[in-house]
């Protein structure tokens, strides 16, 4: 069960109730409980059979996702696999066509939008408009969902925002406007805002895509620590080594479908990487960190052929042969 997060704001009683771990999951809220999972492992996020399509292109095809408190789930997969779409569906940004999402056991559709923002924070991949706000002003916006309509942020909110900026090492440019920051600095400011939001669930879309190696490590370590304190994190990550090292579980997506999922060791095999990414890879234990490491050797020869090798090792949870679906799509492109 999730530990009580240290930085809980007591300003909003409703939010505080929500976050007081004891109240959940015993608090049934008159809603039928999903499945018969033991209370300790009830998911904070549970997506079932999510489907979404745009212009007849199936971006998500019956995707399941489950994440618990204290769990860091990584979404991996090639470009266009549906990682961002999945994150956007879970965070209420986009309304999926079919399926259901439950947040702390409640139907996402039925929760008021403000309440969802109290529970869940999204760090977007790119933030196109920043409109002259300073970094600190932006981070303070993380407090909005916790404030009443007639409230403005007070000392306590300032403190929460400052702490979030310290954690993400963004306090040195707190008073600069976002336009003057680099992509990586901006990305950290948006993470700081998500932390200031004090969510139970943190969704990150490519959180390290613009970061230098030092900050890639620092930011993922920070997320890892927050997760160890009881947060649920779901992140789309391109870098397989980072995904293997920091995530508890990986969900491999391709063409809008879950290809395979599980602990990194089970998901990131040379066969799977070659089949899904079309890259010949060596997977081994990195002696320095003890983490699973992936060396990308070359674009696989087999990426060009109709049926890539290793198709027999891949059985998607749905029972569909994942690789067949994949090669069908690739042959369509060629």
């Amino acid at each position: 069960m999730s530990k009580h997060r240290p930085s809980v704001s007591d300003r909003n009683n409703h939010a505080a109730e929500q976050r007081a771990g004891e109240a959940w999951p015993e608090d049934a809220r008159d809603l039928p409980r999903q499945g018969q999972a033991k209370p300790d492992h009830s998911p904070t996020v549970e997506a079932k059979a999510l489907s979404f399509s745009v212009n007849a292109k199936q971006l998500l095809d019956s995707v399941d996702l489950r994440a618990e408190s204290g769990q860091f789930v990584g979404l991996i997969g090639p470009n266009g696999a549906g990682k961002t779409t999945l994150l956007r569906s879970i965070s209420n940004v986009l309304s999926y066509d079919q399926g259901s999402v439950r947040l702390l056991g409640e139907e996402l559709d039925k929760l008021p939008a403000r309440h969802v923002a109290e529970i869940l924070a999204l760090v977007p991949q790119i933030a196109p408009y920043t409109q002259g706000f300073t970094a600190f002003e932006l981070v303070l916006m993380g407090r909005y969902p916790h404030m009443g309509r007639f409230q403005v942020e007070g000392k306590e909110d300032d403190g929460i925002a400052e702490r979030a900026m310290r954690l993400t090492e963004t306090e040195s440019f707190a008073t600069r406007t976002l336009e003057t920051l680099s992509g990586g600095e901006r990305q950290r400011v948006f993470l700081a805002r998500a932390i200031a939001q004090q969510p139970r669930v943190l969704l990150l879309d490519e959180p390290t895509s613009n970061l230098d190696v030092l900050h890639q490590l620092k930011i993922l370590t920070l997320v890892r620590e927050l997760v160890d304190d009881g947060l649920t994190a779901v992140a789309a990550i391109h870098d397989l080594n980072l995904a293997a090292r920091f995530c508890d579980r990986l969900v491999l997506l391709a063409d809008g479908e879950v290809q395979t999922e599980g602990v990194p060791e089970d998901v990131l095999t040379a066969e799977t990487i070659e089949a899904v990414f079309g890259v010949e890879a060596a997977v081994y234990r990195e002696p320095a960190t003890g983490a699973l490491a992936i060396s990308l050797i070359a674009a696989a020869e087999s990426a060009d052929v109709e049926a890539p090798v290793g198709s027999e090792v891949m059985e998607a949870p749905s029972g569909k042969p994942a690789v067949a679906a994949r090669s069908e799509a690739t042959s369509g492109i060629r």
Partner: protein
Amino acid sequence: MLYAGVSGLRGYRQMRVSARLAIGAAILLALVLVVALISLSLGPVDIPTSHVAAIILSSIGFDVAEFARTEQLVIDQIRLPRIIVGASVGMALGVAGATMQGLFRNPMADPGIIGVSAGGALGAVIAIATGTAALFFLALPVFAFVGAMAAAFLVYGIAAVGGRFSMATLLLAGVAVNAFLGAIVSAIIIVLPDNEALREILFWLAGGLDSRSWEHVRIATPLIVASTAVLLLMSRDLNLLMLGDDEARSMGVRVGATRIVLLAAAALATGAAVAVSGTIAFVGLIIPHTLRLVLGPDNRVLIPLSALAGAVFVILADTVARTIIEPAEFRVGILTAFVGAPFFILLLIKNKRQVYSL
């Protein structure tokens, strides 16, 4: 000295929202009072400010000094209602401009430029031409509001490209809507036989505050104050909307409903202002822009202070307009255009790159 000023501004920017709001409101409120007092004393009959103060105080029950009866009449029946109408109009245009710039994520948005004022003017013209305005007193603002609202949503529909607003499309949509609505107004003027209504209609073509009375205060001021209050209550949501629809949604804003309420409230304020003053251009552009340089983009500060600064600006402009070529009167709309058009061009030059992109 200069450095102290600049770092003072920077210090202000770093204050908490409530402090920024309190300081800004105190300064601007004082300015409103000073400008109103000066404006009340100036005119064909100059009335000393001490008498003005005494007259105002006596009207709320404090007899502190002597003044002439004629002076009281001039203040009570002519100058005070005109100044209150002017202040309300400035308030409306200031908040509508600030809101539209946020909603359209675009610094060039202004009720006049994008055609919302023209929509309001057309509504008002129709109310007069059909005689509805003479039948009941709210007809004028209601028609103006409907016109402003229709124009606002029309421009919004034309200019929105997948939730984005390119500056070029927005400005061009504004040009087209302005031209179209102007053509309808011209057509109405040509076919209209009634001279009395015609004179009244011509009033709307260049904005002015001449011979505004307490009736105009009753028509416009409550609506403008109410819509300003709505915009102020929604200003936090507007902050999030400025960052993009997805951003706003993920932070718990109901984007569609919020945008409609914001646009409707801005159109209501504009419509009420147009109903009593015609189209006074550029106030909604100049005021929020200038304030944003000092206050930053936070709408919770920007919207209320744009209301106050807009009031100061319009009272000031109207005072200049009615005293500069005494005994004749300039119209305030002409004066704001004199200041506003160069300002608009400066902004265009500054934002050139954005104008041509997308």
